[in-house]
């Protein structure tokens, strides 16, 4: 991971490098288990199909993890994430790809807001905002 971004180097409107996440059963099931979410639709295909879904779907905690990681990949280890807010849309399922993009929408008092979109083959899986404090000064 490269050095951390400094607040003074960030401009409103700036775009983050895009990230493609190839969705696998390992990511969907592994993310659910790593977040101790054993709700059947996240690991059991039969249970997912009984709910009208075609396969297991990523849980929200994993989505949060990817949204947060996407921003800290860019911001670096000296960033402090203060909050996130996400809206879920098209479910993430194995075999699809989530294409993540982000844009700085505000930068004030050392704190930056990044708007993040994760889009899959159906449409937007997630639209969210991450608030992150960045190091200031020299």
């Amino acid at each position, binding site marked *: 991971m490269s050095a951390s971004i400094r607040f003074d180097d960030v401009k409103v409107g700036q775009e983050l490098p895009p990230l493609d996440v190839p969705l696998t059963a390992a990511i969907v099931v592994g993310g659910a288990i790593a977040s101790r979410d054993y709700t059947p639709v996240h690991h059991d295909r039969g249970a997912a199909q009984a*709910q009208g879904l*075609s396969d297991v779907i990523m849980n929200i905690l994993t989505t949060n993890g990817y949204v947060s990681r996407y921003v800290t990949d860019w911001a670096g280890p000296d960033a402090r994430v203060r909050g996130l807010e996400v809206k879920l849309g098209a479910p993430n399922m194995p075999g699809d790809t989530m294409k993540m993009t982000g844009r700085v929408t505000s930068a004030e008092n050392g704190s930056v807001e990044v708007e993040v979109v994760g889009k899959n083959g159906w449409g937007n899986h997630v639209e969210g905002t991450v608030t992150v404090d960045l190091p200031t000064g020299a």
Partner: protein
Amino acid sequence: MPLTPEQKKELEAQLETFVGKPIGPAKAGRDAVNEPMIRSWCDAMGDANPAYLDPAAAKDSVHGGIVAPPAMLQAWTMIGWDMHRGYDEPTNEEQRLHKLLTDNGYTGVVGTNTAQGYTRYLRPGDTVTAETVIESISEEKATALGIGYFIVTRTTFSDQDAEEVGWMTFRVLKYIPAQQPQAAASDAGGAPAVPGRIRPPMGHDNAWWWNAVADGILPIQTCNACGAHHHPPRPMCGECRSMDLGFIESTGQGTVHTFTVIRHPQFPGYDFPILAALIDLEEGVRIVSNVVGCDPGDVHIGMAVEAFIHEDEDGFKLPLFRPVK
């Protein structure tokens, strides 16, 4: 079977009793914040942030040592294994609420929104306790997944010193699964099927209209007593209160009364932008539809349009309009 209006009223009265209730006593996380769970999380998220993984680099960072990914906040107090059994025997108020809806046919559940605030980063050894309140329950809503209720919970997380470390709101939809033929279509595996158009609700008062469209015509309801035309279809004539109703076949000729161009939000299953228009049919009724086959910029109020019956890939038919050449 859908609920009767009386059953729905009773259900909604029961739902109301849950609003504002804590789901149960404060719940302590099963394990203290620990590095093995942090590493499993980072594996699944593809997260290589040294602040979570590399003690030396983390020490040199603003964090001064290993910290947990902030988005793990909720993971520290998840129930875990017992969740796979479902809630046949609910153990807290949130589960009782979900079971009430499940027992009434709202068997599906899906998370739709969440917000989290992180008061401080958690470190290995911290213990986390969660207190959750059922904040609100919506009216019944129609969604792409089926009709259902949105439930919002608010959780406050605190540490071993009873200091707040963060908070979360979480919104889920408990719904009656809609029939989704496309789900079956991808049973063989591979990429998920793209969902189709959301079907209109069809009941006693309007299913005949859609059936006539499926037969290839654009019907307009007429009153057999006074001759008035109505759209959309209704159970009783608004002019003379007769319930003796029939229909005529529209010529499909009309003009654009007004329109709007829908660019966002973009739901799966539709081609954007969508030109949604109110069309005045020459028989004297107004119908909501889409104008297709021309650039949205070329549509104007008063424009002459004609109806045709469009068929989706899955066989569903509906009337759309195009400019008269």
